[in-house]
């Protein structure tokens, strides 16, 4: 029996460029099950980041519907969407992922604090996740005292520490060297397999694409193909 986490239907998003209307998303239907490890691939402008922003409740489609973890995301107010992100989603961005004045441990614990977790408990959990991403001993370092790869690992630890339903990563390896990028992908894949956390990653990095259990190829705001398993998308491509 399928356990659907994301159900998106007819998502469109237009941007105005002068007098032109450009379709960033042109009717995307997408279903993702819990535990999936999905990579959205495509060239720049294909719509993968826009779709990722929709799934993260950071942007609203012009038309369509979106249900994540049983919640209709599109009917929520700004504050309700913020609360939804806090309790259901984790993010890893391309760069500038951490709060500059907090230590690595405090960055990981920040979301837990917002969720209302006690200090001792959240710091213990933060330390656990720092160890999970291989950064034991780096807990008190500030972002500017860590490499780009280490910062991305802290971001992964933060994204997973709050036990989210879904982790969204936008070009997580873009600012990393290839070795560090592969290492980060291996980490995310391992965590997906061990923790069962759903990952949706937008990237055009071959190393990231190679790590995908399910690959969704996008072009001109549409899904053009789906490869692998775990995903059921439009055009009759079904992944279970």
């Amino acid at each position, binding site marked *: 029996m399928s356990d659907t986490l994301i159900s998106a239907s007819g998502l469109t998003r237009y941007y105005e460029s002068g007098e032109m209307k450009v379709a960033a998303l042109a009717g995307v239907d997408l279903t993702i099950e819990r535990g999936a490890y999905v990579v959205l691939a495509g060239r720049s402008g294909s719509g993968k980041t826009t779709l990722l*922003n929709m799934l*993260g409740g*950071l*942007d609203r489609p012009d038309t369509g519907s979106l249900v994540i973890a049983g919640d209709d995301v599109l009917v929520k107010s*700004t*504050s309700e969407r*913020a*609360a*939804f*992100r*806090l*309790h259901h*989603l984790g*993010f890893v*961005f391309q760069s*500038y*992922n*951490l*709060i*500059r*004045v*907090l230590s690595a441990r*405090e960055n990981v614990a*920040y*979301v837990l*604090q*917002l969720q*209302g977790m006690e*200090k001792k408990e959240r710091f213990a959990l933060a330390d656990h996740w720092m160890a999970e991403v291989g950064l034991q001993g780096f807990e008190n370092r500030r972002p500017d005292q860590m490499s780009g790869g280490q910062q991305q690992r802290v971001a992964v630890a*933060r994204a997973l520490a709050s036990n989210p339903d879904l982790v969204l990563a936008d070009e997580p390896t873009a600012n990393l060297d290839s070795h560090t990028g592969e290492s980060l992908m291996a980490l995310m894949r391992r965590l997906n397999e061990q923790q069962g956390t759903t990952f949706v990653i937008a990237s055009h990095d071959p190393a990231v694409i190679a790590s995908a259990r399910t690959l969704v190829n996008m072009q001109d705001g549409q899904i053009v193909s789906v490869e692998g398993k775990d995903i059921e998308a439009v055009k009759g491509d079904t992944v279970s």
Partner: protein
Amino acid sequence: MDNLSIYLKLGWRNLWFHPLRTVLTSAALAVGIAALTFLSAMDDGWMQQIKTNFALTVTGHIQIHAAGFEDSRKLSQRIESPEQVITSISSEAGIQAIAQRVRVSGLASSAGSNAGAFIYGVEPEKEKAISRLASFVNKGSWLPDGDERGAVLGDVLADRLSVAMGDKLVLMAAVPGGDIASEVFRVRGLLHSGVMEVDDMIVIVPLKTAQHWLGLGGAVTDIVIRADSFEQVTPMADGIKSMLSAQVLNGTDHKGLSSGQILETLRWNDIDPMAEQWADFADAYTWIVLLIVIVVVLVEVLNTMLMSMHERVREFGLMGALGVMPAQVFAMVIWETVILVLIGGLAGFVIGGGLSLWYGQQGIDLSQFAVAFSFMYMDPVIHPVLELDSMLRILGAAIIGAMIAGLIPAWKASKLEPVHALREL
């Protein structure tokens, strides 16, 4: 509480991410708050001096007269039985001393000259507890007991009359019937108060002699009260007023009334509103300066916070993406502004307070302006006084100003859409 701790932590650390900028902004704030604190303490010191000098040089804290005397200064408006009035008010709490006076304008003449004078008939011993007149005597002595013809006068008036110790002095004034009566006195002492009006005009003689000379019997023009403190003056005056009115209304006439007149009870600031108006003016002036300094300083704070906000647009976007509510972002920026103002404000209070305390002990010598100051009952040496009310006013203004200065960046930060903010470089 936990949320507050993260706001404070983020605010504090963000401020010190750019230490030079924070130090410069805090220093500007500190200088402004220190200047305000010192100015306010000097103003409070001044006001205390003016009030104290005005009340204790001659006037006393409260005076009781026959109604209308303060305006008319006519001896026909007098208190016929002052002892009974004193008996009925003496139970009022907070009274330190009570004395009687006869007060009349007249002419003082010596062998070589004459001049207008304010003539005070006083009870020499009781007067010492009411006013500072006795302490101002710098030549000769205060009126000795039993010396019915002794007179003490202001040193400037003595110069104008060319009189010295032991010289004869003739005083002339209109008696209640309108006739002019004169009396001969001997100069026993000269006083110097520093207040021009007193040094130029005053002649003090024994009450009993004045009453006899002016045909007043046992009547007086003033019953003068000294209170334990300024704070007691208004409630005490109100108490005396209602006590005296009740006696009249109940028909238990205390015989302090003359021909059906009622008595008037006036506070020191009712007798001469100038001192209070001057205090109000100084207060308004301090408010204006406070406003200007706060505005200037807060523009600086606003500038700093806007710079800080603009360089952290991505960070605010990240926070929004992580689930921080717009209201929490707003509160965070406001707290950061308050912390910045508190750093500068506390430093300013320490500097301004320290200067005020030090100069409060040492005094600020402004004797080159002594003549101008004497009009205002001000001493040439000012002692700044730190008053809690003034400190709270400055602190309150600074914090409210900080809130206002923080509103624009806080509002902007809270309105950032994460999806757009995250794209900022």
